[in-house]
């Protein structure tokens, strides 16, 4: 396979964009990435998205591609629930690595603030098993709450230890100009926020978000497009059951573990070399399960590690300098592309928030409650 380089990235501020449509958000991020790549025109457009049905729109690659003047190019959409963005990146990677195209633009986009929140909550739950889980009215927060209580009871982890993750993420995100929630919070704020799905409170959860991010991938033939080229060194996706009932383990994300191991192997990188990482912390429990399944902490030990200062800015790895899903926000199908754009900027040294020097970065993007996980390893 050919080597694949990142020639440009683009992001829009994550948040509530009542004044911007899905195509506007996607177009803005896409054009920014194309500008960074010296206004090169992509031969293919890969869109990551989960819930455009909420705005009554499918056929996204044609819609967005035409909006940014790409008639005639190849266009497709990739879906893997909240993990759609990571999957879009992997698809774009494979289109370049295979030799089919030299220039591929990957765009993740999500537009949630259009319908009443009950519709959005229902839509997000489509990531779960409609036949065997949604029939009982369980929400996505509810499924993660089941994992959280199981984890807390198995490892004797207290609620406060998990909740502290949110405090850390708001601290990181307060410096990120693209972040949705840029206020710092205290542990008391988290513990007094309303319960959504016991034991998950509002501040244990990521917000609902609109957003779009883009990554311009090019082959080795035209890597000259950028003077600090970042390589996509490894990329891997792995699935697990959508339903929690038939999971082999409830306190470990097997798909995340497999995906991380395979992407590191492909990149010929040891986990200890990873300097910066963006992980999928949709809930505080997801942060713990992600950190442990990637291998950054032992099982049941992630909350203790972060309470002792592990993963904070400057540590190796520094995790979620963007503020993560909790503070940057979680524009569902765009999140995996934001993560890659953020880590690329960290490696280039031009991330506008908290920035640390690093040679190797990793992103981990989860669809469903751990049922579809993409890990990307980037190297400068």
């Amino acid at each position, binding site marked *: 396979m050919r080597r694949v380089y990142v020639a440009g990235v683009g992001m829009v501020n994550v948040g509530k964009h009542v004044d911007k449509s899905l195509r506007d958000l996607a177009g803005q991020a896409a054009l920014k990435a194309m500008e960074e790549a010296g206004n090169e025109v992509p031969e293919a457009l890969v869109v990551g998205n989960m819930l455009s049905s909420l705005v009554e729109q499918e056929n996204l690659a044609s819609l967005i591609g035409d909006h940014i003047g790409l008639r005639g190019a190849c266009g497709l959409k990739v879906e893997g629930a909240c993990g759609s963005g990571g999957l879009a990146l992997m698809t774009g990677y494979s289109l370049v690595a295979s030799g089919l195209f030299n220039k591929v633009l990957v765009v993740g986009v999500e537009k949630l603030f259009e319908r009443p929140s009950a519709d959005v909550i229902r839509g997000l739950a489509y990531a779960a098993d*409609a036949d065997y889980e949604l*029939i009982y*009215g369980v929400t996505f*927060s509810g499924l993660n709450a089941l994992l959280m209580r199981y984890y807390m009871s198995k490892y004797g982890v207290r609620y406060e230890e998990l909740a502290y993750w949110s405090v850390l993420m708001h601290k990181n995100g307060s410096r990120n100009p693209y972040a949705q929630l840029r206020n710092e919070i205290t542990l008391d704020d988290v513990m007094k926020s309303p319960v959504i799905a016991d034991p998950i409170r509002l501040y244990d959860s990521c917000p609902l978000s609109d957003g779009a991010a883009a990554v311009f991938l090019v082959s080795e033939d035209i890597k000259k497009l950028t003077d600090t080229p970042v390589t996509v060194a490894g990329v891997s996706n792995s699935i697990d059951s959508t339903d929690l009932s*038939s999971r082999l383990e409830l306190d470990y994300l097997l798909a995340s573990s497999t995906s991380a191991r395979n992407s590191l192997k492909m990149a010929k990188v040891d986990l200890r070399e990873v300097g910066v990482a963006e992980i999928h912390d949709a809930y505080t429990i997801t942060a713990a399960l992600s950190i442990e399944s990637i291998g950054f902490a032992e099982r049941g030990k992630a909350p203790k590690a972060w309470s002792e200062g592990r993963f904070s800015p400057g540590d190796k790895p520094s995790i979620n300098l963007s503020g993560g899903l909790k503070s940057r926000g979680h524009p569902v199908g765009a999140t995996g592309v934001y993560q890659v754009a953020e880590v690329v900027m960290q490696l280039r040294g031009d991330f506008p928030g908290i920035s640390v020097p690093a040679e190797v970065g990793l992103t981990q993007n989860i669809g469903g409650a751990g049922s579809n996980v993409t890990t990307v390893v980037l190297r400068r």
Partner: protein
Amino acid sequence: MTTIQRVWRLKNTLLNLLASRCSVCGHVTYPPKMRCPVCGSRELREESLPREGEVLSYTIIRVPAKGFEDFTPLIIALIKLGDAKVLAEVVDVKPEEVSVGMRVVATVRRTAQTIDGGVPYVIKFKPLRS
């Protein structure tokens, strides 16, 4: 917001708790699959799970999904039934009285109305009082 035909298709699994047991490795999985998730065998046979079990984890949903407003607060649990786990609603108990390890038994109850106006019945679980 499900449909009546979906509930009808699922009647065996949702009302009789039919799981699949692998004839090769013995793994039991619910909901049933077409190949064994552990060994890949297609030699699976249907097996009804026991109707009594134990709560492995639970949540109390305060912010409902559309269509479940009347069922809120909604208690959802993962319940160990023999060699498998089942996700289902727990009823006949106050939210503050649910606990990990609680013994429960299956009961047939009404769930949220379908979009085509049906009133479906599914298995839920209630505390096993000795």
